[in-house]
């Protein structure tokens, strides 16, 4: 079982090979085989989850040589820790649901569609498990191709624009990241690092100017993917035009690539620069939260509304991650999973009514709850989850994010962001009200059928997860906790660089001159030179690490 991680990642590719031998007209077989492949992948990933040890180390590591040419050595280096395992599970969990949702939605070019889905799964899993920077980049790019075709071939009427925009936006960002990656590699070479292995780069000390440039390049690529305001414009287009399964995967997993990128790469690799840019990123995140919520409120198309709600939710994740403390990052991680589940579910719901009515305009609906009670119940639960009602998963994540961010240097950002919670309740509940309640006056809606068995089967796992994670998030948090603690430690800025932080500088005013005085000076003479700085940094970091003391 030592290759279980590779097995999980490449099972979908094996599925593709299987599909190639199935004639394109036997749609039922194609669908069932794909479903079976994704279910098996999920089960294998569960085996991995069961074998996962709760500690901060990377596990199921596989590390074999891949490319060795010239100055570069790339390795097939994979492994997961408490952060990535949940994203892997999220991916394998969402995939069967996405596949199942296509059974009636996709009637044309089924074979190609299924191949795209499976290739996408391998790409996404690969990006989450890569511990080699180059390997990560490869998966990161490979992922684009099937998604591009899914939007472009099976999308709505503006599909070409959306597909090309999606591809080029992501490509621009990732190519700049590639330059940064190579630059980082050469910096590492000077320090004696000889391959692209991520973990060794964590210990690489870079000067501030280098960090800033590299962080900007990485952050730009990830910000496009998250997407952060003002780079989010590709997302509503892509979501609106993508077929349901595409939207589900895009929202549930692909967007997490961006936030995961910050957590795994941008922050631990360039902690000082990350701190320096935290106010900027928090500003953009908060603007994203408020702006996207306001835009979502006035949307006429349900799918576009959900797309904008994604931008707002991901803004919360970014805020939590850039709080740099355990609460914030834990909340961010949980919210990534929650958003995957609740927004995935919302897109499925939109897909259900679109399949029935071939419209997504809010004004075309009204009073559906009378006709479709089961649908109404599920929609309501998912809405509550998206809004963050206590008892659902959305609450736990948002609460931790706001808690963490409030106790970090991002306090005032948090205050503003909190109003986003209310705004999300406004637009979500309002759309629910307009679609589900009121008079069932449109004759076309009076003949609508409620969810069938397959559709209920799709939604049940999501609804269950909404409650499980809402009522008992402990197992999830416990597994990710050591990894997050490690990240918090990595993101903690070292005293030498702390002086560059204006915010910290102010707090250290009394102590800082002491540390810089010559050793013979009275008062400074008793301590080793490095010591005062470390002590001085503690007022800044200790509430961040352990905010419970403050309460």
């Amino acid at each position: 079982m030592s290759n279980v991680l590779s097995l999980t990642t490449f099972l979908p590719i094996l599925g593709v090979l299987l599909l190639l031998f199935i004639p394109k007209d036997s749609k039922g077989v194609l669908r069932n085989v794909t479903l079976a492949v994704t279910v098996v992948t999920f089960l294998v990933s569960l085996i991995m989850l069961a074998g996962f040890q709760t500690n901060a180390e990377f596990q199921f590591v596989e590390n074999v040589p891949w490319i060795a040419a010239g100055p570069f050595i790339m390795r097939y280096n994979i492994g997961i820790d408490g952060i990535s395992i949940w994203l892997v599970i999220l991916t394998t969990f969402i995939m069967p649901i996405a596949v199942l949702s296509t059974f009636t939605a996709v009637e044309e070019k089924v074979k190609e569609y299924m191949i795209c889905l499976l290739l996408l799964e391998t790409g996404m899993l690969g990006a989450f498990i890569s511990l080699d920077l180059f390997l990560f980049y490869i998966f990161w790019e490979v992922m684009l191709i099937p998604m591009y075709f899914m939007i472009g071939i099976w999308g709505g009427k503006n599909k070409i624009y959306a597909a090309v925009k999606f591809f080029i936006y992501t490509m621009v960002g990732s190519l700049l990241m590639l330059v940064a990656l190579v630059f980082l590699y050469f910096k590492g070479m000077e320090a004696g690092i000889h391959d692209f292995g991520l973990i060794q780069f964590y210990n690489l000390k870079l000067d501030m100017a280098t960090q800033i440039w590299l962080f900007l390049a990485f952050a730009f690529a990830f910000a496009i993917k998250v997407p952060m305001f003002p780079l989010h414009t590709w997302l509503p287009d892509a979501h609106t035009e993508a077929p349901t399964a595409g939207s589900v995967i895009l929202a549930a997993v692909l967007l997490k690539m961006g936030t995961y990128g910050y957590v795994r790469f941008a922050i631990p690799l360039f902690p000082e620069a990350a701190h320096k840019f935290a106010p900027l990123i928090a500003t953009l995140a908060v603007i994203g939260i408020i702006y996207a919520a306001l835009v979502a409120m006035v949307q006429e198309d349900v799918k576009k509304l959900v797309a904008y709600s994604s931008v707002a939710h991901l803004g919360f994740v970014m805020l939590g991650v850039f709080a740099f403390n355990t609460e914030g990052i834990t909340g961010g991680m949980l919210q990534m999973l929650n958003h995957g589940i609740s927004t995935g579910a919302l897109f499925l719901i939109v897909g259900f009514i679109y399949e029935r009515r071939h419209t997504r305009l809010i004004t075309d609906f009204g009073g559906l709850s009378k006709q479709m009670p089961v649908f109404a119940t599920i929609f309501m639960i998912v809405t509550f989850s998206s809004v963050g009602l206590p008892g659902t998963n959305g609450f736990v994540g948002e609460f931790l994010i706001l808690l963490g961010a409030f106790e970090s240097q991002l306090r005032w950002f948090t205050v503003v962001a909190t109003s986003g919670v209310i705004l999300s309740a406004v637009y979500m509940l309002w759309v629910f009200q307009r679609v589900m309640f009121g008079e069932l006056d449109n004759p076309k809606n009076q003949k609508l059928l409620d969810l069938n068995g397959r559709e209920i089967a799709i939604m049940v796992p999501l609804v269950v997860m909404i409650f499980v994670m809402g009522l008992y998030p402990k197992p999830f948090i416990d597994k990710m906790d050591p990894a997050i603690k490690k990240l918090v430690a990595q993101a903690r800025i070292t005293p030498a660089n702390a002086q560059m932080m204006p915010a910290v500088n102010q707090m250290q005013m009394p102590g800082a001159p002491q540390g810089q005085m010559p050793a013979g000076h009275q008062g400074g003479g008793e301590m080793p030179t490095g010591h005062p700085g470390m002590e001085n940094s503690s007022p800044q970091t200790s509430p961040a690490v352990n905010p419970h003391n403050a309460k």
Partner: protein
Amino acid sequence: MDMILIPAVNMTPILPEIFLSVLAMALLLINVFNPGGQKSYLAYVSFIGIVATAILVGAGWGSHIESFSGSVVLDNFATFFKMIFLVAAGLAVLISDSYMEREGCNHGELYPLILFTVVGMMLMASGTDLMTIFLGLEVMSIALYVLAGFNRANKKSNEAGLKYFLLGSFSTGFMLYGMALIYGATGTTRLYKIAAIVGQMTLPSANILLVAGMLLMMTGFAFKVAAAPFHMWTPDVYEGAPTPMTAFMSAGPKAAGFAALLRIFLVALPTLQVEWSQVLWVLAALTMTVGNITALRQDNIKRVLAYSSIAHAGYALVGFTAGNGTGTAGILFYMLSYAFMNIGAFAIVILVSKKGETNGNVSDFAGLGFKRPILALAMTLFLFSLAGVPPAAGFIGKFYLFSGAIQKGYIWLAVIGVLNSAASVYYYLRIMVYMYFKESTEDFAWVQLTAPVALALIIAAAGTLIPGIVPSIILQYAQMAVKLM
């Protein structure tokens, strides 16, 4: 009476050239005595001859033999480039036959001319004397002028041939003038001797003859590899020439140009690297940008690929600007990958176009994706590789080219390069948009995949995909090739 001393000449380094020349002449004679009728057998014989030459060339790997008093060398650098030329020529021969048959210009001289081009290119790669390199260049160019205008019933082809000839001879003049100035400055045309003499100069960059000669030579080669601002001939010639020859021209002679450039500048003028890399920096940035921006507006697919070919010369120049092991190995790898992916793409263009080169617009690819899925899939692979998307060879090539620049500190050049790559994605995607996202009433019934074309496509696809996944199999040779130079 003194005897005239004839130095002992070791023929080994030019055995492949001799073999190909003899084969070409034999084919010419066969063609003379078999006028008219089927010419396919010439293609097959040429292909087998090319494969045999490849084996011959491959056998020379690892050896280092100088001959003809140091004007020709057999080294890994030459061997690697010879392989690139043979790949380009082999693929071109495979896709030529059915095309020439369709266009009604299946004259038997085509194949000997291709082989002569290869002989010229091989001399360019293995020459270590300015005269040998020039000789190779001329042998290559003259055959190419004819090939560009090979479809003599077609006005565009005639125009291409004439245009290529006029501008080509003009640029050759520049190059020759540059070589003369360098000879004037150093008193020799042997590359190693030039290097030694320049190395002893106190301030070589102040030697006007030398610097002017270097710049003139660079101009000449910039023309041959279609670098901006000397690229004006490229779109018209590429569009007008018979498509298989366009494919060949974009891969083979471009690689030969880079072979000679690398050899001259890295062997003879390394002392002036600071100077020439500055010029190349500008040239590279300009070439990438001009190529990509103009390609965005093209509708004819041959013109799209022509402008993209300019852009690709720019990418290779990035590696050359770096001039270090990473960058130059990147050029070698990239030129080989480019031969596979670009000729592959042109092969699909040939299949989709109709007699008289109609049906050659990007929009004519509409619906190909689901009517001819395998062809479209191959095209997709080539296009993604050209765009530099992993896991195709084009990505690894660009990665090494740009990494070379970054390693050398040319970060901004690399940034310009990747931004150009991103822009290029648009026009490559556009072809895919038509293939997959647009419906069409066409059934593509005229697309007939003959066995040679199918073989060419398989080779091209394998050459594009496999080095993308396991690049070491090619890269290690590319790096050995540049190391010993």
